[in-house]
Structures are given as structure tokens and as C-alpha cells.
């Protein structure tokens, strides 16, 4: 019998806000322990939370980016459980009235478009971090109260690699939208996985097994690569799976059982009385919707479609959004957007990297790149010379035409002048000339190079080749 996996993901993402969720402490990774703390995020007696508006906006923005609807009424609840990293021993979260519901995420998978439904995105607070030393333990509360968003998917994923691609696509969107830096090294993203297996064709789901708290996408993939075959093996050997929670042991490469359903926590959720329900106004929603950006995948597909770019170039313009915008500012007028993309990616970006500058520092106007392409296309300058002209444009900001004129870089297509360079080249290099005559056609390229050199790169290379060949062949016939 064949089995299939059914996977849903709960992805926790730290939001990119200046301050924490309920207080003014900095939301900043890497400070010495317990330096970004105050009475509020330490849960001292008597303190109250005040919701971070920007975190609410970023959660709503995420909802819009994930095609969710934003309910007119959201609220916070208390989730009760004791743990030393929890300052209040309850976590404030959105239980039954989250900020965003029922959306979907599309991503490229197996050469087609996969769509995973999003159940909800809700806002909560992160907890502190426990450290265990030789003789005692400590808690760093710098992370306690950092705004944390949880994005819950429907069980629409069917394999480890699909889960991995979903997570990457989700990350791209969140980074792109400025919602989170999603830096896994800094623990900004953590995942819980729900996975079950069932015989192919069966409609009801198998026992749901949750794998808790993985902090990398590759960890998720590896855990599923282990867990799915494990579950199938249990069923195949006549065993039974029960709803339970497991832990991924990364070094060992295995999952192990933490607790079964009968020992599941009762979190005793109830509405957080210290915070008012959140009812977004039209104006507030309008403000958030103005921050919606084109999704990375949509942008890539549009660049491929509208500008006939290869996928790699389109992807470059997705990653480097300002560069893509720069390209778009000239692409519509370009005869060959592909050529324009080449100049922007291979020359402009390279020069900026080399000089450590950004688009804001570029001295010439974007259409100058189109002018430069035009000069090459019209045979005014060679591609070689175009490189020099670009260098000059980049350093001085002058227009390509002006640089060509000022420096006398226009291509020489005057036959008489080129004939003179050819004669000189043949005369100075009797060896290669003889080689050519002896049938080594490759020697022509060497001689052509010499002509270009003598003309300081201005000779029309095609014309130089023709003339050289004629002269050498003529020599053969006359017996020179």
C-alpha cells in the first residue's frame, strides 16, 4: 500500500519593530543579558501591557500579503502555563480572534505553482531564554515581549521538500514586505510542524503528530525526512499512531516523543482584560494597505513576461528591488530590455559593488544606458569601447555621446585608415601572417587584435577582419 504525508506548519516570526510588544524596550538581538528589560517585560507586580501599534500594522500587512481577510474585531488572550522564561507565566496571544484569517501563499514547486492555504496570522509575545550553567541556570529576558507573529497553514503540504519551499517562499515575502528580517541565526524564525500519514486515496487524516520548535528550515526538512518514513513504517508493520508531540533532536537526526494527547497542556485561554479589543478603522486599514508591496513571485513572473528576461535576471531584480526598479525605469523604452538588463546587472551593479556605492550615488541619468546601447547597435562604437565609455559615465556622469565625441572614441569604419593599420600589422608580424597562409585560420584573430591595438580599439572589428583576410589571401595569390 502507498502512503502519503499531510503536513501543516506553524511559523513563528519576530517582527521588525523598534520596540517590544508591550513596552518601550528595544527589540534588538545580541545585547548583554537582561539589558533590554523594564518592569513591564519583566512582569513585575502591577505593570500593564500597551500594544505596539507597529506590530499590529505589520501583522495586518502580512495578512494582506498572504491574501487573508482582516477581521473587523481582533483581541488578545492569555495562554496560561508555567515556564521560567515566561515573566508572567501566561503568554499574551490572539486565541480565537486573530488579526488575519483565511488566505493563501503561492510558490514555485516542481515546475508549477503550488498554493498553500493560510489559516490565520496572529500576534503574540516572545518569551525569554533559559541558559544552563554548571551549577545553576539563568534567564535572559531581553527577548521577552518581542513581538512574535504566528502564521498557521492548512495541512496542504505533502512532502518535506514542499514544506521547505513553502517556508522559503514565506520568508521571501516577509523580508520583502519589511515585516521581519527572518534571520534564523538570530532565532527570528521558529517552526512547529504537524504531520500525519494516511494510505493514498483515504480521505480522513491520520493521527496528528506535532514536532515542536525547530529553528531552521533545513531542520524542518530533515525532521520530516525522518518522521514521515517513521510513521509509514509504524503503520506498515501493523502499529497504531496516536496524537502526540515530538521533539526534533538535530544532532542525532531523530524525533522523540515528548508527550501524548492525554498529557496535553490545558492552556486555559481567556480574554486579556488589560487590553482593549482591536477594531481597525478604515483609515488605519488604508494606511496599512498602502504598505503592500508586489510579492516576489509576482514580480519575477512579471519581469519574465513583460521584458522577456531569463529567470536568473528576473530573480536578480526580485532580490535587489532597487536595482529592479532602476531597470524598470528604462526597460519600457528599451528596444532590447534584455540588453538593458545585462548592462544594469553586469556593469552597473558590478561597478557599484567595486566602488562601494549605491544607486543613489550614480552620476548619470538612467536613460544614458539606453543611449550607450544605441551607440553600439548603430555601430558608432564597438562593445569593447562601450565598456570604457561606461566606466567614464560611471565616474564622471557625462552622457555616452559626449564621452565618445570628447575622447574621439567613435569607431573607425574608414576603409583607407583600416587598410593602413592592416598593412602595418601584417608587416610587423610575418610569423602569424605566414601561419594564416599555411592554413592556420586562427592566426587571423591575432592579427585582428593587432589592428585593434594599433587603432586604439576604434577600428570596426568586422571591417578589419575582412580587409586582413583579403590582403593575406591576395598575398598568397601573388606569391608574396
Amino acid at each position, binding site marked *: 500500500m502507498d502512503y502519503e504525508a499531510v503536513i501543516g506548519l506553524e511559523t513563528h516570526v519576530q517582527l521588525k519593530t523598534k520596540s517590544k510588544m508591550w513596552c518601550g524596550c528595544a527589540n534588538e538581538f545580541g545585547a548583554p543579558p537582561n539589558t533590554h528589560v523594564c518592569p513591564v517585560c519583566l512582569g513585575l507586580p502591577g*505593570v500593564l501591557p500597551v500594544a505596539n501599534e507597529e506590530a499590529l500594522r505589520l501583522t495586518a500587512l502580512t495578512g494582506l500579503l498572504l491574501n487573508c481577510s482582516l477581521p473587523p474585531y481582533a483581541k488578545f488572550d492569555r495562554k496560561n502555563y508555567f515556564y521560567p522564561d515566561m515573566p508572567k507565566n501566561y503568554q499574551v496571544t490572539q486565541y480565537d480572534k486573530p488579526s488575519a484569517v483565511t488566505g493563501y501563499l503561492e510558490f514555485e514547486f516542481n515546475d508549477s505553482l503550488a498554493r498553500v492555504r493560510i489559516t490565520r496570522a496572529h500576534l503574540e509575545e516572545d518569551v525569554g531564554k533559559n541558559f544552563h550553567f554548571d551549577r545553576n541556570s539563568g534567564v535572559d529576558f531581553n527577548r521577552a515581549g518581542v513581538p512574535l507573529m504566528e502564521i498557521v497553514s492548512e495541512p496542504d503540504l505533502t512532502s518535506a521538500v514542499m514544506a521547505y519551499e513553502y517556508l522559503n517562499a514565506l520568508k521571501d515575502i516577509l523580508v520583502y514586505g519589511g515585516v521581519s528580517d527572518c534571520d534564523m541565526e538570530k532565532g527570528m524564525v521558529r517552526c512547529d510542524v504537524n504531520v500525519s500519514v494516511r494510505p493514498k486515496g483515504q480521505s480522513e487524516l491520520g493521527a496528528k503528530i506535532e514536532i515542536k520548535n525547530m529553528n531552521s528550515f533545513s531542520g524542518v526538512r530533515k525532521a520530516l525526512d525522518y518522521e514521515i518514513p517513521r510513521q509509514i513504517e509504524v503503520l506498515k508493520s501493523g502499529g497504531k499512531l496516536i496524537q502526540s508531540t515530538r521533539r526534533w533532536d538535530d544532532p542525532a537526526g531523530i524525533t522523540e516523543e515528548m508527550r501524548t494527547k492525554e498529557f496535553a497542556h490545558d492552556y486555559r485561554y481567556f480574554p486579556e*482584560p488589560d487590553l482593549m479589543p482591536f477594531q481597525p478603522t478604515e483609515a488605519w486599514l488604508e494606511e496599512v494597505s498602502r504598505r503592500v508591496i508586489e510579492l516576489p513571485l509576482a514580480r519575477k513572473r512579471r519581469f519574465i513576461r513583460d521584458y522577456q528576461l531569463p529567470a536568473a535576471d528576473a530573480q536578480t531584480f526580485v532580490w535587489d528591488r532597487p536595482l529592479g526598479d532602476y531597470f524598470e525605469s528604462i526597460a519600457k523604452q528599451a528596444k532590447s530590455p534584455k540588453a538593458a538588463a545585462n548592462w544594469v546587472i553586469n556593469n552597473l551593479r558590478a561597478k557599484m559593488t567595486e566602488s562601494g556605492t549605491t544607486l543613489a550615488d550614480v552620476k548619470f541619468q538612467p536613460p544614458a544606458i539606453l543611449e550607450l546601447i544605441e551607440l553600439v547597435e548603430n555601430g558608432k562604437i564597438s562593445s569593447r569601447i562601450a565598456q570604457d565609455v561606461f566606466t567614464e559615465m560611471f565616474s564622471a556622469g557625462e552622457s555616452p555621446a559626449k564621452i565618445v565625441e570628447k575622447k574621439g572614441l567613435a569607431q573607425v569604419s574608414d576603409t583607407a585608415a583600416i587598410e593602413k593599420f592592416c598593412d602595418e600589422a601584417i608587416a610587423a608580424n610575418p610569423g602569424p601572417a605566414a601561419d594564416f597562409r599555411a592554413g592556420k585560420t586562427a592566426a587571423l584573430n591575432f592579427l585582428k587584435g593587432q589592428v585593434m591595438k594599433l587603432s586604439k580599439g576604434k577600428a570596426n572589428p568586422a571591417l578589419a577582419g575582412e580587409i586582413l583576410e583579403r590582403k593575406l589571401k591576395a598575398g598568397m595569390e601573388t606569391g608574396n
Partner: protein
Amino acid sequence: MLNQLTLTELVARLARREVSSREATQACLDQIQRVDGQIRAFISYDAADAMAQAEAADKALASGQTHAQRPLLGVPIAIKDVIAAKGQPLNCGSKILGNFISPYDATVVEKLKAAGAIVFGRLNMDEFAMGSSTENSAFQVTHNPWDLSRIPGGSSGGSAAAVVADECIAALGSDTGGSIRQPAALCGCVGLKPSYGRVSRYGLVAFASSLDQIGCFGKQVRDAAIVLKAISGVDHRDSTSVPQPVPDYPAALTGDIKGLRLGLPKEYGLGSPGSAGVSPASAGGLDPEVKQAVEVALKHLQNLGAEIVEISLPHTDYAIATYYIIATAEASANLARFDGIRYGARVAGADPIELYSKTRGAGFGAEVKRRIILGTYVLSSGYYDAYYLRAQKVRTLIRQDFLSAFEKVDAIICPTSPTAAFKIGEKADDPLQMYLMDIFTISVNLAGICGISIPCGFTAWPKLPIGLQLLGKPFGEETILRVAHAYEQSTPWHKEKPPLAS
């Protein structure tokens, strides 16, 4: 003696520079020395700090600062041990906080200091404000100044006793189900519970967040009005505080209540003088002397020009059950932070779970444990809908009862407590009897409205104070203060002092 002055009189004398804040503060400290060994209202106080504040106040007065700018300049005000004051112990009447010193000021403390008050002392209370007698304090039992064998009420028993025993000029307390009004009634002073959202809760250690409100105790109504004005207002640190302008409360005390309509809830077992009330809520519970004193007060208010109108609060019978579900549910989460990890007392354990249970087992008293267990139960999976959710629905109905009533009347009038102060230990083994002490006060917190208790007489023997309660609309403090003031100024009760105090 200066400590016996009302806040209003002291301010007048300070303003005229007849007395100094140091003298007034010293008089309070002397009185504590003299009587608090018997009253035991203060858990602790820092005399040197109080005197330093008084000296600063005297300098401010000398430099020309006025009470128009800082209405409480130089006035010693003591604080219930549930409100955070920077550098002072914060124990909430419990052992579990150990030697905790608050590193920050509650918003009300900031406001009192800004208004020039001498903020001093930690006033005794039922542990985490859970109780109606102050017997649940882990520190000491506070005694009623009128009869030392009796309780002062609770949970703000220390605040009420200290004001009545003239150990301070005014005091702050907190009221979750009657914790200001009931001790004010039982000790014989003015106790004001503002509307929910009127006063910031930032720095008030939460018992039941949706019911808690800070309020004040005074020797007369005007004092309470002055303190209320100083501590009210929206606070960016408390999302549940309401951006409602703060009126000039003392200016509302016109003495004129002609034409005001006062509602008499038929469910509370009172009638116009002489008539028999029907009393499902408090059948058998309302003491005849209390009933009579309140009925005489009704007559008096009629004589002052108020109109008494019968109203109905049909969901009254459900108030106590509803309250004990909502309050304990919220408390079970609010008190979870006292775990011995970050601050407070700790009893070590082999692992965190053992540390928690040992710390909390040793740190919390019986009533607090009882309420945490109750609250945990009503929120548990499978019980939430039957208890918590249903209680929230009933709460809405109770609030509706009041809002409908306030369409017909300007304020509601009733007793504060069904009986006068009882004997220490009398109800200690019967929590349900204790819970019934809050029968007339608890609905006010569920509805989020405001209430004030003022003296309206004494029982015959022993002589114990009786409280009259006036309830107002949300943010209707001006009206109840006006009625309370008119009543007070035309009756002798507020002038009576317990023998001990003088």
C-alpha cells in the same frame, strides 16, 4: 492636633502658612506611634523619608508654590500595600513577595507626588486584596478603631482604619468588589470607588484586572473629591484607562440636590421609611439597624429635595456567583507571576515545577490558594463555557440593569454593607458568609460604575459605624459626590471620632 484635621482644613492652614507640612507629617507619625500598636493599620512606614518629603513640601510652599498649582502640597497620604511606590516595599499583604522593593511608581503615586502629597506608609490589607476583613493579611490583623475586637472590613482595612484613627490625612485603596467602600462603612469614613477606567491601574498589583480600580479614603467628602481629581485621568501606560476629561470634582459639591432622582433598588430589601421591602438577595442578611439607618437617610435626602424612585436591578441575585467566577479566573492568571524565579520569596526545588509548588505553597495564604484553584477550575477545558463564558454574559446583563436604571435616576442609593463590623475570627472559617458581606458592593465592579460610601449613623451597642452607599453612572462621580456631600454636611456622623483616636 494636626493629624485630626481633614484634608481640606490642613490645606487651608498650610496655605495660610499657619502650620508646616513637617508639623502635620510629624503629628501623623506621632499618632502611629501612639495608636498603631493597637490598630495595626501600617505594615511598615519610613518616617525619615516622610519627613524628607515634608521638608521638600515646606520649601516648595516657602518658594511660593500654591495649592492651586499643587492641590495636595504638604498633605500626608498613606498607601495600600498593593500600589507600587518607588523605593518602598510592595508586599500586597502577602509573604510571597519577600523583601521586594518596588523599582517604580504607580501612576497614582506619580500623580500624588506631582500634586505635592507626602506619600508614605504601607497599609495593611487582605492578601492580594482577597477578603472583606483584612484578616487574610499575612502580616497582621488590623483592628477596627471603634472596637478593637472587631475587623475593619476589607480588603483595604488598613487604609480605612488609618484614616479613621487619624494616622494619616487621607489614604489610597483599591476596590475590586467593595474593598474601599465596605471598610469605609465599617470604620466610618468616606470611601470612593471611581468608575472603571477613571484612574490608571498602572502600578496597582492586579487581583482581577477587569474589576480593580484605585480609589481613595477621606475624612469627609470634599477630601475624597480633591484626591480623586488629583489621581484621575487617562494614562498611556494603562490601555483600559479612558480618555474622559477630569472634571473639577470639588466644584461639584454645591450642596444643592433639589430635584435629583435617587433610585432605590427593590431587590435590596429596603423600602421608604416604614414600608417592608422584598429581599431575595439579602433575605435575612440585612441587619435591622443598618436597614433602619439607611431608611432614615433616605428620608433625610428627601427632605433635602431629592426624589426617591423605586428601580429594579433584576439580575442582583447572580452578582456574587458571577463575581467569584470572573474575579478568580483573572486572579489565577494574575498571580501566576509570583513563582520565585525573578523576585520575591523562593523555596528551592529540584526542578522548576517543584520550586514553583514549594514557593507558592509556602508563599500564599489559604484564601488566595482557594481563589487560584477556583479560577483555574472555571477556566479549565470543558468548564470554560459553563462558567467563565456564562459569567461574562451575566455580567453584561448586570451592567445593563444599571444602565437602564440610570436612564430613570441620577444615582442609586443602598447600604454599603449588610451589617456593621463583625468580630475578628467570627467568619474566618466560613468563606461563603464572608463573600456575602459584599452583596451590595460587588455589582458596582461588575458594571464598571462608580460608588461612594459615607457614614450614616451608628449601631446602638456597641457603637459601630453604618455606611450609606451612593452609586453613579460610568463617569458620574460628580453626581454621587454632590449627593454625598449634601447629606454629610447636613448630618453629624462625619464629625464623630472613635474614642481611641483622640
